[in-house]
């Protein structure tokens, strides 16, 4: 294996990052060409503006979405799972040790009765 050859062969195929990079760069160049052939007389300065339902946001309004709002739907959909997870993560040291010793006991039983040797 030549370490400077970027191809890695997996059990199901191959991966070459340089080929991927070349395709990626080619895609960027094509995108740039399409962009440059676009309408030249467009109004500038509007494209990056923030709009709520077609209106500009009121003066002084915070246009930034805070972290706790991102992914709300995902967490809401998994509410029962997250409720159980929050119960597990108590932050109490006794529980940390309890989980450790509990897993130790379970693994001892599993290895002793269902294999290990």
């Amino acid at each position, binding site marked *: 294996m030549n370490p400077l050859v970027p191809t890695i062969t997996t059990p199901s195929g191959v991966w070459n990052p340089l080929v991927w990079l070349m395709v990626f760069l080619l895609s960027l160049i094509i995108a740039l060409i399409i962009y440059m052939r676009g309408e030249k007389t467009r109004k500038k300065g509007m494209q990056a503006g923030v709009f709520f339902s077609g209106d500009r946001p009121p003066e002084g309004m915070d246009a930034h979405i805070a972290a706790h709002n991102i992914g709300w739907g995902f967490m809401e959909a998994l509410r029962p799972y997250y409720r159980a997870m929050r119960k597990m*993560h108590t932050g109490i040291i006794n*529980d940390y040790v309890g989980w450790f010793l509990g897993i*130790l006991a379970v693994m001892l039983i599993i290895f002793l009765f269902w294999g290990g040797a």
Partner: protein
Amino acid sequence: MNPWDLIMNNAPALAIAIPLLGAFVTPLINRAGRKAMLVWVIAVLAFTEFIALLLVYQVNTYGIQVYVFGANPHTLTVPPDSGGIPVRIIFTIDGMSAFTALISATLGLVVGIYSVGSEKFQTAQEKFFALLLLLVVGMMGMALTGDIFNFFVFLEINSLAAAALVSYHLNKGKAVEAAFKYAVVSSIGALMILFAIAILYGEYDALNMAMIAQRMYQTGFSTYDMIAMTLILVTLAMKCGAVPMHYWVPDGYGEAPGGTSAILVVASQASLYGLFRMSFTVFGLSANTSSLGWFMIILGLLSMFIGVTMAFLQHDIKRLMAYHAVSQTGYMLLGVGVGLATLGTAAFNQYGLYAMEGGIFHIINHALYKGLLFLTAGAIIYRVGTSDLNKMGGLAHSMKFTAVFFLIGAFAIAGIPPFNGFASKLMIYESVYQLNPFLAIVAAIVSMLTLASFLKVFHSAFLGPKIYDVKEVPKSMLFAMSILAFFIILFGIFPNIAIHYLVAPAAHALANPLGYITKVLGGGA
């Protein structure tokens, strides 16, 4: 003997001796001024890195290396009058040991450089750097030693130094509480390992890993061995942050200074190394490796999924990244677990060894990109004074380099090509799939959730209107981040550099416990 030969012949001992001496001398040199102390610390860490590279070179060129403390020659593992027992402390360095030592030394050096800037305004800096060097000693020792009691000693050095570093910023007592929790779980874990060592010593009259493995194989795997094995493996799984024993991770990583969180990732990986070393080398010949492999696979699956879903919930940048560290550890356990589960079967050569290589490649990749991400988190906190993502925003306006480094780390951890995380994840997906497709499906879903989680962080911290009027972080911090970013890109575009020189030798060393045992018990002449 000229100095070069001296270094070449004693590299394993110097890998421990240099940072150990450096740690205890640091407070003394600090009397001559902060600059002198910083030059000293960086020089010690750079020399340790050089020694680690030398060990990789020696192992790749000459095979497994043994170093016997107090013996003449230093390769005399079994003295003629010892009754065939390797009585002295022996360092045994194979591909996996050298691999772990190199990661430890590299992150130690990078974090040292980063901390020159990030800890500039803190008090008691000499203690911080002395502890950092001690942590490097602990990690290097765990990686290099071939003696099970010695392993316990270095594990303790690792745990104590890490706990003290976690508490360094105090943070109104929160950091001290986190350090206390880490110290308690580590101490209880260390007691379990000590108990296991006592069992093994009582049975085999030996503390050398190779000797224990050989005698265990000759006499058969007893119930006592089973108990010792469970105590050691479960404790090391807890120490590397595997679910459901991961609770200390978000506390510890979350409250530690940014640079310390990065090195804690590698400190946990030293325990992961211990888990792999014990599973393959010490118990691998005698125990049921299929059961052990599935133990790792199940821990890996739980860690991947629970780690990433808990990360998604967080709005503290450090805790979020800590849960991702738990999740990424799952990939390593999965890859190496599949290798262990198939060891000794035809499937091992078909895909098991490849899964192991993927898992081991992920170790170094994770050290690089999670190290970088923690350093960027530290840079953000250094400037804005909060780790709460809800209070952040618009930092890309003023911290452009940090934003770019964060994106590199985020793309790498999410497995976006052509960064290094993609290469190792691809190796894991395509090999574990052949054992059970469900494993690869979970791994791929976790990768998508990781991307979603880091997009949330990037949006919250760096995008949006400018909230903080801050400057970019000091140059030493940027330089440290750039080193890790460079290797992330290098190992992404040229993965075979890492695979050829580091990963494949490590995987083959783990898969060949007989080679390890023969090298130690063959006399070492």
